[in-house]
């Protein structure tokens, strides 16, 4: 019984295979391979001397999934665009959702009343605390002469009594 194959290797394709043999006769210019390996080595050496521009390539090669992902992006610009749009949308959504619902409008807090209220709140805990008295000084020690014009600086001290 003759053995038949689903994908016959030679049946019906003999002429085609002979024709394809023509490609084996296609040869690069004479002497082309004499300098080929030298060119490769020179380019490797040039790459090592210069900036390590192949780091990304190496990373891509060592992480195959990243390589496949990068290849897909290169091959399909639409995919790269869609990814970019998705990233922008996510960023925008993140910004919007990170804002608190009851947050005042940015400019309203700059009103004089709001600023006053904010300042009062910030110093309330220190001035009106029932504990130790608060010491307001001008930040200089008594013997300092650190003024702009070499004049001796007088220390001013205010002490508020606690409640």
């Amino acid at each position: 019984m003759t053995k038949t194959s689903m994908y016959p290797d030679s049946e019906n394709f003999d002429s085609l295979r002979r024709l394809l043999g023509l490609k084996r006769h296609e040869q690069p210019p004479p002497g082309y391979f004499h300098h080929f390996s030298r060119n490769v080595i020179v380019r490797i050496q040039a790459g090592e001397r210069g900036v390590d521009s192949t780091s990304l390539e190496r990373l891509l090669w060592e992480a195959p999934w990243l390589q496949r992902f990068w290849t897909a992006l290169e091959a399909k610009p639409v995919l790269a665009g869609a990814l970019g749009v998705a990233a922008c949308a996510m960023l925008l959504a993140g910004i919007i959702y990170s804002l608190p619902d009851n947050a005042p409008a940015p400019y309203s807090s700059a009103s004089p009343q709001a600023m006053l209220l904010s300042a009062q709140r910030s110093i309330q805990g220190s001035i009106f605390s029932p504990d130790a008295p608060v010491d307001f000084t001008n930040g200089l020690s008594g013997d300092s002469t650190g003024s702009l014009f070499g004049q001796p600086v007088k220390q001013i001290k205010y002490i508020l009594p606690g409640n």
Partner: protein
Amino acid sequence: MIMAEPVTRKARKPPEDQTSALPPEPTPEEDLVRHARRGDLTAYDELVRRYQERIYATIYHMTSNHEDANDLAQEAFIKAFHALKSFKGGSSFYTWVYRIAVNKTINFLKQRKNKAQLSLDDLDFHAEHDPDLVALVSDKTPRRDVSLAELQEKLNIAMQKLSEPHRLVVTLHDVQGLSHEEIAKIMECNIGTVRSRLFYARQQLQAYLSDYLK
């Protein structure tokens, strides 16, 4: 970069009594790879010399363009050198570098897609004396006026009409003579896939080239 003890291109010296008759033994591939991994460019140069013709030919038959093949073949070897540290030795260096070259070429072709330009290598002297080709361009051929150069161009145009995986299988098997098993390793697929792609690709080529086939 760490420089290892360089591998000289002249391989090990055979014993005295055999020096006149035998050619020097080539350095084993594993030794060259080990030295190249440590940064020995002389060893890597030797590896490039061993495979440059096959790698160039594969890329050339895929692109039908000498300049592209030249660039891609060089880049494939450069990339392989930088990736040598990730070469685990699970396959031969030859299969591994082939895979790099093939992936690089397929990526390039995907980008080039609509601007394929032929830049064909010349046919060598032996083409005119190849009995198979003589038979093809004989009086029995349907197109009697066809020349080898014209046939070469038509063949390359037809090859470029195939998808990259189909063109690759035809190139590796029918042009370069690799076995199905070797192709499966290079393409990282099973042998059944190689066979079915080869069958389909031949069918396609046969249809494109029907005027030139008996």
